[in-house]
């Protein structure tokens, strides 16, 4: 019995399952956050089906598909990174993380070009061009910018988190014996992917 050890005030409590549980609970809050936005999307798509259809033609399906493939592959690489570390392969783990981060950068670059193209067409929140369009289209683009914007913000946060993991692995703070932080970071990254899996058909595949 380690009662007296437990009685020591500075007992450092390690609970990997608890850490993972906490992370999943946090992910639920993200699901509900985006869920609320999907609810708004659903209501307005229900109310303005034709306008949504019309407005969606402005979006580039190819870029959207490319971004989908990028994120799905980045999910693969982050999963491989965790597996590599579990197997003790520190170098491969770090390599996979670097690739994941690069994919994230590619995603954001694509997004930047997408948005700036639309801006140059005069389509951005509050623009006179947009306000001239029918209400359903205004709503579509409002939702488009907010949802992909919020998602993009999460991609940036994910990139930062993964970068920190890279540093931790390099400094042996995350190791084959202690990698729950990396797992949790992976979970966050997969969530970012999951959100996009739903965003993609709802914005790019309304044909």
């Amino acid at each position: 019995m380690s009662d007296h050890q437990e009685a020591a005030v500075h007992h450092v409590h390690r609970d990997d399952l608890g850490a993972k549980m906490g992370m999943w609970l946090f992910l639920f809050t993200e699901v509900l956050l985006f869920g609320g936005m999907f609810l708004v999307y659903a209501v307005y798509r229900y109310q303005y089906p034709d306008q949504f259809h019309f407005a969606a033609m402005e979006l580039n399906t190819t870029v959207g598909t490319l971004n989908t493939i990028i994120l799905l592959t980045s999910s693969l690489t982050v999963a491989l990174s965790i597996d590599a570390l579990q197997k003790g392969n520190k170098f491969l783990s770090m390599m996979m993380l670097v690739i994941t981060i690069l994919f994230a950068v590619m995603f954001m670059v694509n997004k930047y070009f997408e948005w700036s193209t639309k801006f140059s067409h005069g389509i951005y929140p509050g623009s006179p061009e947009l306000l001239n369009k029918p209400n359903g289209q205004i709503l579509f683009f409002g939702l488009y910018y907010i949802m992909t914007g919020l998602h993009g913000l999460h991609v940036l946060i994910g990139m930062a988190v993964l970068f920190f993991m890279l540093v931790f692995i390099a400094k042996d703070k995350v190791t084959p014996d202690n990698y729950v932080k990396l797992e949790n970071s992976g979970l966050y990254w997969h969530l970012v992917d999951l959100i996009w899996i739903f965003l993609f058909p709802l914005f790019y595949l309304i044909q």
Partner: protein
Amino acid sequence: MPDAVAGNNFYHQSTNKHTGILSWLLTTDHKRIGLMYLVSILTFFLVGVIIGVLLRLELLAPGRTIMSAQTYNSFFTLHGVIMIFLFIIPGLPAIFGNFFLPIQIGARDVAFPRLNLLSYYIYVIGAILALVSLFLPGGPVDTGWTFYIPYSIRSTTNVSLTIFAAFVLGFSSILTGINFVTTTHRLRAPGMTFFKMPLFVWATYATAWIQIIATPVVAITILLVMMERAFGVGIFDPALGGDPILFQHMFWIYSHPAVYIMILPAMGVVSEIIPTFSRRTIFGYRAIAMSSLAIAFVGYLVWAHHMFTSGMSDTARWIFSLLTFIVALPSGVKIFNWVATMYKGSIDPQAPFLWVMNFIFLFSIGGLTGLVLGSLATDIHVHDTYFVVAHFHYTMFGGTGTIFFAALHYWFPKMFGKMYNKKFANIAVAIYFIGFNMLYFPKFIMGYMGMPRRYYDFLPQFTPYQKISTIGSWILAGTIFFIVGYLIHALIKGKKATSNPWGGVTLEWHIPSPPPMENFHTIPTITHEPYDFSQLKEMKNE
């Protein structure tokens, strides 16, 4: 076995890495964090009380009494924002959940102590943001705490900053919820199965789930309103095709479950106090535990009863009305079981118990009038009148607010190792009851007579009721300050309290008052049911 020789290991005295004030500001001890919350939350509550008194002063007579209409609008908005987001929602979980959840399950702290401290600072930042919004150009918000579209996107007051403050406060709530669910699953002492946990733990656990699942919905709603104000995106703005009713849906999808965040922990406290002061085990332990989960879940299904007159479809209205009647059932289960617990119990009518009696009466009135509001035909007449105002004050204030005092009086000796003046406490309970009913009961009558809520002025026929209500506010406010006064006095000059002044049997009563930093010298192994009073004999030897 609590050691009487803990000496300077009391949590409020021992210092670890830091000394002085830093040992509090940088603490990760759940008890200290609970206390810091107590100081902050109590302060904001008193500010909210003062604003309430000022509102009632304005309403003493028709026409302008002490403030302009614009100021009045800002004041009732502020009163709502402070009371709801800074007092009632965080209140019981952040103070008593933090302090007692780990102890009641036999743990040394919560699952994520540093996250716990972060929650506290996020709360403080949210509070500061809300206060700052009072003074920046644009002036304090005047939309009402519900920020309905379209006025919330048109008002020139500091809406964005205030709702951002609510956003930040929501994060504090979410992190607390994550901490408590994980703690309950992972840190229970050996032998403490889920069905040996005290009912306060069940209540806090159910509440934590609501904090996690519901809060993000209002978070996104707030973000959308901020985007709307900043960029004219056109999400809710009817001029751009948006639907103001959709805002109401999203707002209430959180704000209804939020009222269960408010009441569930309070009901948990009642389930602690009644067995202790009836000296008998709780009647229907499993039913009460399950009813907490049931309330938490069904509470997600009733939000649109706040929207019956908004323009929703008829189908939605009768569905939500039906669901609203259903959600009342698990609460009824609790009340029935509490009363059954007291039957043939050995009642010890001390202050905590008297507070609970207050609660049962006041909350029942609140709950019953909720049925009037939940029923479509009657709601048409009383929606947006003083009837609603009376209803939610009876439930939120008469319910959660009363239990805030009950919990304070119950756990004060444990938290501080001192006992307050019991005669003062008894007097306070009685006068609180009088003041409360004087303040709020006339509002039921006025609402029924047609007095709308959030109105600065009123017709002469309401004057006598308004006067009674205002006088009630003075009595109630006076009692509250009296309570704070004698409690602070007890902190400084009170008699030392024993480890178990009330004869309770849950784990917090097995350890010294105040508790040592690590809660337990040895983590106990649980063999008893949570409210097994045969333990009292063994405990006298501890």
